């Protein structure tokens, strides 16, 4: 896989599959994330560290959106930036909101942290390489349309869909017509959206399908875990 990527990178002008703008965007985002991640662990101010973490998390979200999975990207923003970081900042401001460098932040456990970070990188890198060992990258648009209602009155078709087919010209509105799957797939995406009964192949549907079928047990277990944490918080916070 890596050899194929390198070969493509070496010959970017002849390869139509190598997306240059996407790679430039990736390089910018990744560089910003690396810089912020390093600044986050080396800065002397807790508040600054939290704000650098915001940049790193925003970068992760940007990468997800760059890869075309906007649902995960939006979730990343909502959960991490909108909730967890805000809670961090809230906690820091309630306790020690001091300006300038904080001397007590300097930690003697830096070597330990570096080792843990390195180990984590090795494990995750191995999992990534192992998981996609011989897979080839697939470029291009995924299949857009799942199924189509086969018979519909011509008058019920939205105007753009009707206009897209020459064979409907001059027919009365009550004529029953059929659209084959191949025909709908050939339409531009904006028009295909308007075909009645056409199910668009999108990330949201895929994610929903896998959460509520394949990963249902894990999903429910996580909900119970969160509920337990919620009840625990209430018990701890109560005065009696």
């Amino acid at each position, binding site marked *: 896989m890596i050899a194929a990527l390198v070969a493509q990178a070496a010959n970017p002008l002849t390869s139509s599959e190598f997306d240059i703008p996407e790679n430039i965007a990736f390089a910018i985002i990744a560089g910003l994330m690396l810089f912020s991640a390093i600044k986050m662990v080396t800065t002397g101010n807790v508040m600054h560290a939290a704000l650098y973490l915001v940049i790193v998390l925003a970068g992760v979200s940007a990468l997800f959106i760059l890869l075309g999975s906007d649902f995960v990207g939006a979730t990343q923003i909502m959960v991490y*930036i909108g909730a967890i970081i805000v809670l961090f900042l*809230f906690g820091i401001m309630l306790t020690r909101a001091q300006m300038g460098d904080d001397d007590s932040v300097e930690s003697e456990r830096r070597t330990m942290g570096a080792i843990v970070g390195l180990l984590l990188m090795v494990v995750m890198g191995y999992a990534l390489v192992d998981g996609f060992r011989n897979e080839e990258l697939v470029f291009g648009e995924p299949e857009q349309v799942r199924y189509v209602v086969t018979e519909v009155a011509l008058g019920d078709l939205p105007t753009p869909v009707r206009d897209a087919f020459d064979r409907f010209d001059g027919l009365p509105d009550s004529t029953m017509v059929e659209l084959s799957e191949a025909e709908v797939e050939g339409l531009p995406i904006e028009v295909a959206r308007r075909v009645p009964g056409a199910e668009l192949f999108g990330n949201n549907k895929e994610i929903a399908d896998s959460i509520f079928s394949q990963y249902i047990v894990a999903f429910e277990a996580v909900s119970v875990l969160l509920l337990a944490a919620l009840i625990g918080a209430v018990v701890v916070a109560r005065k009696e």
Partner: protein
Amino acid sequence: MISILSVEIPYWGQTTFRVLGGLAAVLLPAGALVYIYLFKLMSFVQSRLGPMEAGPAGSLQLLAEVGKAFQKEDIFPRKADKLVFAAAPFVVLMSTFLLILVVPFGPDAWFVNLDTGIFFALAVSSVSVIGILMAGWASASKYSLLGGLRAAGQLIAYELPLVLAVMGVVIQAGTLNMQEIVYAQAEGEIFGISGIGNPFIITQFIGFAIFLIAMQAELTQPPFDMPVAESELVSGYMTEYSGIRFLLFFIGEFATAGVFSMIASVLFLGGWWVPGLDPDSNLFNILGPAVLFGKVMLVTFLIFWFRFTYPRFREDQLQKLAWKVLIPLSLVNIVATGILKVVF
């Protein structure tokens, strides 16, 4: 490749159009809101004339205010954290500009047609909290810090009813995509009558009311303006800001009011669509923005009406309203919508 009047537009051209369109879509409604409602309607409610000198009926007052802010010195408090202090207003404004991305203005007039639509909008709207906390902390002032904390507490509390109120619409429309939500309302019918489509304000009225209240709180407008309560905190997290940076916060407040109203119009009032016309007709690409603007003025009228007539809540009343009234009510609304969706 997108083409207008059969002229193909290159990528950089499209990007320029999108940036200019985004600026216009955020700033023009904001300016209109400030002049029509903040200057004129507020004066009317308080039995005074409002600005009268600059231009006919004071219509150029807005330009005068902007010019004034540009002239002023950009003051940084001595102990302030310079970088964070300077960046905070931009973070708040960035959240507004990210929000406009998913708002549809016509069948083909949109910036990005995300499948995640409304979920993306709700996610990026929470980014402004970071900017407010940054401003509150970096000012190195007690008033700012307290204002920032109050703002964060309030925004977190009211984000939940905001999200939950939208759920009803999402269940009914069966999609998160903003464009599809408009179509669902345009092509829907109530008990077989399809004359006015099915604007979700009719079936989701509770959701609409909760969304408006939560929106008012998210915008920190009176009666939910504890974070900037001038009698207690000078002006909260904005206390130390002056000149152009204060102007950015000010624009952010009213631009966000405009954009949130656009989202409310799309979700509950049918967006760019008006009854009686075919939603697929090309006419809506030109008429749509005007229709949406009209609906925005309706929704913001409600917001500003409450703003001018109700006194400020207390902090505990604010939290009680969110957690004990709005959230349970919106949960009941979700369950009811789900049951009705399955039954019908």
